[in-house]
């Protein structure tokens, strides 16, 4: 059962990621990314990380992607019509680079699995909200508060950047 769920979710995640990259419309790309994140949260559930699966749906698919969709629809972008319409050397090089990085990663994963120690399944409750909260508020209390400051700073910075009055760049030498 777990194997079938994993295959289904993995195929869904890879297909939606590919569809996101090759789609010409930015809104469709964002919606495919939401599908990809939901599939990934299913994979997190298979890995017994329940808390992060919920957070993935709430924060990524719920908040960040809604922000992306707001910006895409606010800017009213036209489609990228010339994407894939003719062969470019750039696409070939990009594909080659992607395949190179992929083969390197697969090679290192393949040589890594023999060296991993076998761990007994002693902590099946590793990903519950209780277990995460236990560690988060004791051992990782300082990073947690630093993250709070970082989020505040990010919101203030975003307001400063986005609210700036439109002053077109004037070149006095022209």
């Amino acid at each position, binding site marked *: 059962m777990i194997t079938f769920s*994993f295959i289904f979710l*993995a195929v869904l*995640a*890879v297909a939606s*990621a590919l569809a*996101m*990259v090759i789609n010409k419309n930015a809104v469709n*790309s*964002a919606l495919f*990314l939401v599908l990809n994140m939901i599939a*990934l949260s299913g*994979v*997190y559930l*298979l*890995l017994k*990380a329940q*808390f992060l699966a919920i*957070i*993935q749906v709430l*924060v990524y698919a719920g*908040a*960040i992607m809604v*922000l*992306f969709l707001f*910006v895409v629809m606010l*800017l009213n*972008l036209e489609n990228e019509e010339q*994407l894939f319409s003719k062969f470019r050397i*750039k*696409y070939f090089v*990009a*594909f080659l*680079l*992607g395949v190179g*990085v*992929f083969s390197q*990663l*697969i090679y290192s*994963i*393949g040589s*890594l*699995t023999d060296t*991993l120690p076998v761990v007994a399944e002693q*902590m099946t409750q*590793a*990903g519950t909200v209780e*277990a*995460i909260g236990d*560690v*988060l508020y004791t051992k990782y209390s300082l990073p947690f508060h630093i*993250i709070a400051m*970082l*989020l505040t700073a*990010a*919101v203030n*910075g*975003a307001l400063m*950047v*986005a609210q700036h009055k439109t002053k077109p*760049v004037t070149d006095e030498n022209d």
Partner: protein
Amino acid sequence: MISIDWYLALSAILFCIGIVGVLIRKNAIVIFMCVELMLNAVNLSLISFSSHYGNVDGQILVFFALAVAAAEAVVGLAIIIAIFRNNLSVDISRVNLLRW
């Protein structure tokens, strides 16, 4: 029970799709979404190692990475809006003020 290498392979595939997307797309928002995809792939590999060792620290790291990704998305989208105001486009091949 699926062994950990399949999860890592899925993570590698998603990461490479993100790399190719960043390299071939010209729309700045789609490039940003591909970066989010790569962040998700790394989160998946962290969680699979955490689940393999039965150690919760990797999931805490994913939690912090998620918070940083949220902050990064907010600032990045604000920068994209600012570029759009000055340039009337989010096509990164037309943002060439600093290009030699």
